[in-house]
């Protein structure tokens, strides 16, 4: 399955970026084939509101079926849920660690936004 992981860098050993809307990169990884691609999120770094919505659209366009990130606000949550994308929230991990934990079934799906709507 294709999963999007928010990241601070473009490689597998990069630390995850725990923000979803303003993550620096999305790593799109295929858990079966091992392929991965780094998609920069530059449009959103300075965006005003709605960064989470934009990020959700980006990962949906990439065909991701799941997202691993640190925090998700209500608008991003709503958009991901509408796109049928599963959301996993984790603490500080590297991209590789996050993928491994997902493959081992150690992550749980989040059913609500975990942070309030914010303009940050």
């Amino acid at each position, binding site marked *: 399955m294709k999963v999007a992981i928010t990241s601070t860098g473009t490689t597998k050993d990069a630390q995850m970026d725990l923000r979803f809307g303003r993550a620096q990169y999305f790593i799109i990884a295929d858990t079966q084939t091992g392929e991965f691609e780094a998609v920069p999120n530059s449009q959103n770094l300075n965006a*005003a*509101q*709605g*960064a989470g*919505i934009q990020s959700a*659209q980006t990962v949906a366009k990439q065909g991701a079926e799941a997202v691993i990130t640190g925090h998700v606000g209500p608008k991003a949550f709503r*958009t991901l849920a*509408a796109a049928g994308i599963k959301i996993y929230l984790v603490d500080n991990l590297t991209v590789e660690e996050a993928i491994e934990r997902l493959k081992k079934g150690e992550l749980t799906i989040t059913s609500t936004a975990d942070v309030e709507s914010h303009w940050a």
Partner: protein
Amino acid sequence: MIISIASGKGGTGKTTVSVNLALSLAEPVQLLDCDVEEPNCHVFLEPVINQVNKVTVPVPRVDSQRCNGCGKCSELCQFNALAALKDSVLIFEELCHGCSGCWLVCPEKALTETSREVGVVETGTADELGFTQGRLQIGQVLAVPVIHAVKNHINFEQINIIDAPPGTSCPVIAAVQNSDYVILVTEPTAFGLNDLILAVEMVRKLKLSFGVVINQADIGDQRVREYCQNENIDILLEIPHDRRIAEAYSRGQMAIEVVPELRTKLTELFESISGQVKKKSDRTS
């Protein structure tokens, strides 16, 4: 005639001047409270409200059957109010500014215009005074449409006094624009001067005639007076700090009731403004 009362800094006495000026005038007057986030004139005037109208803004509505997820709406939207997904679009009404771009651009005619409420306008009377106030719904961000809705009640046959919000940004502009005259209320302190300079910049940008009222005129120093002199700005009135006025204000009572001399001063202030406005309109016509 339309006279707006504004200030850069909050709490300088806009509402005090607005309501007391309105009640000091003999001619038919309407008071329009455009501080729609925190309208306060009603506290002093205790109006009888006889009409409440909702203020709505346009928002898109999607017909999912027609939507093919092309994303053109989302691309156009400058406010991120639309999220285009595979075969549908999500609408975030709270981000929408009502520009209509999305439903105009949709090639499938899947988006249509509907509306949502952001506040109300209440109209009525307070004795002889016509009264209109706007009230933004808590949690809403679009104050400007509510302010425009209040100003739709301007009666060009009367004297209209507009109580503007504090500051210098969009809602204030919406309240004061197209006024015949703006009264900037300030206080003789560091904050008062700092914010007066910003307010003066604003009215000059809008090319509106204006003058200054210094409230609590004896609690500070000369910096505001010096600034006005240097900038050739009319100081229309100085109201000294008076505990009677502060206490009356706290109770929701009119200042002119406890300090009757103020009524005369406000009438004179109005005459001065009125004269200036007539002169200007004679010059331009």
